[in-house]
């Protein structure tokens, strides 16, 4: 305990984050193997890990690098569909489920990273809301292209077409991606354990990046681009690094997600999914990885737990979303909460000096 106090704030925070993830996993794993949790909760475990990864990876762009990206689901879909194609192609070569998942995930991540690079190069010329709208546009373009993508696999190898399934010219074999009908008959390779490992991997990559020289450069660009430029930081390069890493991680999460359901369609990865991930990041506190993880978990479980109110479920979800934003961001409310906290603390420890209550965010542009 003493040692924990001596450590720097960031190291402590990192350890707490890892600890939280590991403890959560251990508890859920124990409960699920003891069969004491419901099948609805069990079914949510893999999607939750995927969303947690997406939340962490988007946090790198939105929170750490300071760019509002509205097309994260696009990279997720590139990863998901690449992963599905790879997993189907290797079905006979690699029989070990986890090994096939691992290979698919790596290749899916690579493709998503490549897509991130191709999108990132033009996008990084822009800033602010203009950057946001361009990422939105890219997300829609990726969805539109995938809606017209046909992929088949037979003895001769891989067939690609942007026109129709007939144009593939298949000789036997299987159609893996069938345009808007997406992929069906996906072997469900994803497991909760693997999802957890991916969360750990994503966390390690992102936290190490943040606490490295590169990470500090990225944050310097976020806080004051012109000042960062003046000390010789190549701003475009560092913003691009964050963007590409984030895209690659989103792709890997996409593979995990895609291989968890036996059917996936491109339509799934639309603007609304991008927004959903963004909501995790903003609710958790931009740049706050742990907050983002908690938000992803809570917001994935919440609609399921609201099923008992039937038709009013999604309305309730909207009200909860608005209320949480109001409660966490309203100054008046914040001040009152701060005072309350202060009073409790003083009662516990009367000697403690009154610490100025933390003011909310200031609206600088």
């Amino acid at each position, binding site marked *: 305990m003493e040692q924990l106090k001596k450590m720097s704030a960031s190291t402590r925070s990192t350890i707490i984050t890892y600890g939280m993830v590991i403890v959560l996993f251990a508890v859920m794993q124990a409960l699920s193997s003891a069969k*004491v*949790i*419901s*099948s609805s*909760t069990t*079914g*949510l475990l893999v*999607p939750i890990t995927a969303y947690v990864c997406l939340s962490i990876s988007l946090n790198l762009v939105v*929170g750490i690098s300071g760019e*509002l990206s509205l097309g994260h689901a696009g990279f997720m879909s590139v990863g998901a569909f690449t992963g599905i194609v790879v997993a*189907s192609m290797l079905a006979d070569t690699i029989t070990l489920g986890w090994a096939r998942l691992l290979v698919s995930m790596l290749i899916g991540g690579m493709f998503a990273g490549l897509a991130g690079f191709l999108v990132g190069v033009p996008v990084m010329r822009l800033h*602010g809301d203009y950057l946001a709208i361009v990422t939105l546009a890219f997300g829609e373009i990726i969805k539109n292209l995938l*809606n017209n993508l046909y992929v088949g*696999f037979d003895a001769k190898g891989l067939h690609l077409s942007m026109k129709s*399934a*007939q144009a593939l010219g298949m000789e036997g074999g*299987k159609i893996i991606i*069938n*345009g808007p*009908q*997406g*992929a*069906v*008959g996906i072997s*469900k390779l994803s497991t909760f354990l693997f999802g957890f490992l991916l969360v750990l991997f994503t966390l390690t990559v992102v936290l190490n990046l943040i606490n490295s020289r590169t990470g500090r450069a990225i944050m310097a660009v*976020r806080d004051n681009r012109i000042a960062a430029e003046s000390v010789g930081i190549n701003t475009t390069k560092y913003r691009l690094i964050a963007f590409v890493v984030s895209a690659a991680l989103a792709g890997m999460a996409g593979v995990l997600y895609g291989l968890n*359901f*036996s*059917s996936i369609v491109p339509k*799934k990865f639309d603007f609304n999914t991008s927004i959903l991930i963004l909501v995790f990041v*903003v*609710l*958790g*506190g*931009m*740049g*706050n990885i*742990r907050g983002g993880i*908690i938000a992803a*978990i*809570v917001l994935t*479980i919440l609609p*399921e*737990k609201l*099923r*008992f109110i*039937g*038709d009013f*479920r*999604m309305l309730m979800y909207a009200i909860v979303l608005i209320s*949480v934003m109001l*409660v*966490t961001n309203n100054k008046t409310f914040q001040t009152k909460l701060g005072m309350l906290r202060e009073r409790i603390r003083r009662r516990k420890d009367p000697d403690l000096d009154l610490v100025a209550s*933390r*003011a*909310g*965010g*200031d*609206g*600088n542009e």
Partner: protein
Amino acid sequence: MILNDFSRRTFIKLSGVAAAGLGLSACGNSGSASSGSTESAGGAAASGDTFKVGGIGPVTGPAAIYGSATKYGAQVAVDEVNAAGKIKLELNWQDDEHDAEKSVNAYNNLKDWGMQILVGTTTTTPCVAVSTESNADRIFELTPSASSVNVLGGEDIGADNPRKDNVFQMCFTDPNQGTASAQYISQQKLGTNIAIIYNNADAYSTGIYQKFVDEAGALGLKIVSTTTFTDDQTDFSVQVGEAKKNKADLVFLPIYYTPASLILSEAKKQDYAPKFFGVDGMDGILDLEGFDKSLAEGVMLLTPFVATATDEATQSFDEAYKKASGADANPNQFAADAYDCVKAIAKAIEEAKIEPSMATPDMCDALIKQFTDASFSYEGLTGKSSWSTTGEVTKTPKGMVIENGIYMPLDKEETK
């Protein structure tokens, strides 16, 4: 962009508490695997003599029309079966927002409730995902309206999608509709130059389109224009303009009735009056609130169900449906299919003498045996149906034409 302080502590604390609460309730749920039911009171208490029927379909989001229709259609049938008194059913309908992930969640939720038979899911994409789950869990599944063959599984479908023997369909499969439409048009000589407008972001529409083109080619029908649209798209000026420019005398619309209504009104705007030929998704167009029925004059469609039919079964269903949904709209083909699903299951249960106390996998096997039995057939709102081991339904589509705002049978009934 503002990325400074975001008073995150408060949120984390709040959500931490919320997470703990939810976590606890998750565990609480497990103890008695019965809570979480929405519809009916006394979920667990009634388990002794009641069959627990689960239903899944979108009742929120853009596809909510289809889910609501199936939900109320199924409810009407359950009420009727219960009133008849031979067997008792309990229906629990869950929303899936037309999304595979949410649909699997809904399915797991129903499983916790103790579902024994599944009526669903309404839409295709979620159904493919759910049917894989139900196949693994051995729960009998009859879908009212998920029409893709992917739902059933089979040798040549997808990367690894073997036949899911517990899954059956109440509606025609998409390929069947495409083939049947082309044959119908060719036999009845309805048109020579054909334009097609289909939704290329929709599995249903694309599925019919692909088979239609194959069959049309074989029958020597000439396709002069093919245009597409995506969901939410409301401007059809180009698509209709293309068909008009290429002098198509018949426009084939393998799409749902909402975009079809827009196409009809666009055609009127452009003074273009070809024949329009639709599939079962077109049914419902006359019941759109505020729709100018004169626009649909002469529209032809293949459909198994006609809401305005005068037979007693359809009329009493129509009445009960309006009461259940609390709205004045006539039931569409989705509602009729869902109604038939429940009634067919009830019939199979009675004939096979299945007891509610049976273990779910055994019940599944017994129902599969009954449905694939050569002597088993069911006659309902959507015609006389029987099932093969592939899970596909065999029934006769009726060719209909809209005259003076009502459906009239087309001449020379075509049999598939």
